[in-house]
């Protein structure tokens, strides 16, 4: 059932706005060249991370890909440690070994992110397999882009997850592009990723990844399905990245996608849908205070020393 509870919707909106403003702050400061690692911003895709993670417990685990900021933050990852990590500081979540593409916060079940396409999918299945072997009650969510579904390891992982009926939720974020390569040059339009997952024996569903309450509802159903012992679930949500694949800028002018396409997705912005209901100055102020604190923390932190 689609959530209409105002207090929950406000929480979802707050989480999305928080991620949006954090990433906008990163984008704004990126040209200073103090954040010396690639950043893949989730701006435009916040609803999937927030909606899925709202259906989880702190003890549930997630893994992610190169575009991991939103997942890390939605799962409760420390903002200070994330910003410090992007600045390459000792106080970062990987003490400077990882950077933006390798985020981790074990306390909140963020088990790690990696940028090799599809690379963290079997890791997530393995975490679920460990929980299965140890009779632990938590489940594992694997976030990945639609490009990962072109990797063999995706199908291999679906197969094993279904074979062992593992407590794992596959969440595919289809943002239509792998860097600059559109979906239609990579997959036949008739290729149904849902059908592929279903053929492996998974329960599948799909939805609008820019409608946070829809994401939440489908995630809650998926979580219930998994907890009832019926096996793994594959969810796919469509969405759109507003900025360039890697970096702080907009890149609709360079020619791989049209202004019209970007503009039409802009009208479907996951935040705009709800802002008229929930936006107010005090929320923004609260978020911005936290952001200022995190950047201050990162800038004031020491660099790691060579061992």
């Amino acid at each position, binding site marked *: 059932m689609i959530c209409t509870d105002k207090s929950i919707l406000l929480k979802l909106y707050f989480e999305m706005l928080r991620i949006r403003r954090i990433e906008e702050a990163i984008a704004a400061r990126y040209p200073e060249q103090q954040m010396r690692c690639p950043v893949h911003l989730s701006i435009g895709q916040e609803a999937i991370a927030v909606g899925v993670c709202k259906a989880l417990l702190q003890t549930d685990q997630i893994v992610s890909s190169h575009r991991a900021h939103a997942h890390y933050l939605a799962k409760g990852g420390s903002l200070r440690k994330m910003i410090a990590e992007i600045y390459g500081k000792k106080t970062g*979540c*990987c*003490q400077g*070994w*990882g950077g933006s593409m*390798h985020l*981790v916060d*074990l306390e909140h079940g963020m*088990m*790690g992110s*990696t940028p*090799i396409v599809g*690379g*963290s*999918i*079997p*890791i*997530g*299945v*393995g*975490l*679920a*397999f*460990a*929980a299965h*072997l*140890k009779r632990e009650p938590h489940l594992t969510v694997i976030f990945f882009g639609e490009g990962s579904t072109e990797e*063999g*390891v995706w199908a*291999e*992982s679906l*197969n*094993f997850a279904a*074979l062992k009926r593992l407590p794992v939720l596959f969440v595919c974020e289809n943002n239509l592009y792998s860097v600059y390569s559109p979906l239609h040059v990579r997959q036949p339009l008739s290729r149904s990723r849902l059908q592929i997952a279903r053929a492996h024996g998974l329960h599948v569903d799909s939805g609008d990844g820019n409608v946070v309450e829809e994401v939440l509802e489908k995630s809650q159903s998926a979580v219930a399905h998994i907890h009832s012992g019926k096996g793994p679930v594959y969810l796919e949500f469509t969405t759109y990245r507003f900025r360039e694949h890697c970096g702080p800028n907009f890149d609709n002018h360079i020619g791989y996608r049209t202004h019209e396409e970007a503009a039409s997705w802009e009208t479907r912005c996951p935040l705009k849908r709800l802002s008229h209901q929930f936006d107010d100055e005090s929320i923004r102020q609260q978020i911005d205070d936290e952001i200022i604190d995190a950047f201050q923390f990162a800038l004031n932190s020491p660099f790691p020393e060579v061992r």
Partner: protein
Amino acid sequence: MIRSLKFYEAIREATDQAMAADPSIYVMGLGVPDPKGIFGTTLGLAEKYGSERVLDMPTSENAMTGIAIGTAIGGMRPIMTHQRADFFLLALDQLINNAAKWRTMFAGQMKVPLVIRLIIGRGWGQGPQHSQSLHSLFAHIPGLNVVAPSNPYDAKGLLMSAMTGDDPVIYLEHRWLHGIYGNVPKEVFYVPFGQAKITKTGSDLTIVASSHMTLEAWKAAQLLSQEGIEAEVIDLRSLRPLDESAILQSVCKTGRLIVADDDWKTGGFAAEIIAMVTEKAWCRLKGAPQRVTYPDSITPTSWALSNHYYPGAKEITSLALKMLDRPMRSEALLAEILQQRMLKPLDTPDPSFTGPF
């Protein structure tokens, strides 16, 4: 208690003892619970520990390696087997990008206690894709441990260390070693990584080898003894970490070095050892270090070709004689080798030697 066990029995015993002591250890691989039990190394384990801890797996090397890594992060201790190392090439992404890096990449917050047992094939027409050693490739990667036992004692002791360590281990088993005998204590013991073993002492030259080539080096040392030359044989046991000081100490004593390696010459592990020695003990060398390796070509299948492919004890001996100014004896032995290569297939393990050494 000291008993004689075969190499494959030592692996099975180590696995059994470790599994009995630690319920987080599980064994996974194609054919692990089947009637052959990975050349006998996993026989009986499924019956004893059940199908959750001793399990077969899909033919999905890359994902299954990632899944094993995931379980290791999640608190399990997986042992993964592959009946030929060549198949494991499909999993290099998960091995190199994830297993080797996970611990350091995330600042030591997680560990990856993963053992990958790879069997190197040889003989009876194993051919291009069933015979690759690949240890040079693995040993290149920071974050991995690479071990290659040559005898049953080390097979057990190194596997015990691998199964109780906190980092990924590539454990290489040469197929021609599975039937070798040797003394193995019944109780649990550990052979630490990074400690080479001197298999035979000598003062005239140093022969460095690992895995099956250690047997050939040891046999070469016996042949050289008959010529009045005393070779020191170093069994590396562990390639990464490497026991540099054992090699350097020996070379400083003998001044001459042969590295015998079951691998290709170009960019191989033999080159690494020679580079290390020339960097650190240049002035102690009496002559140029030499390599005994496969030729730089794929492994042929027909015995008529593979007879000429694999170097062994006599090739090492011939090279040592040449280095020690016995060109006539070296040439004579070389002629003998060439003649033997034409006579009959040399594609099964040497029946005259089954250990111990």
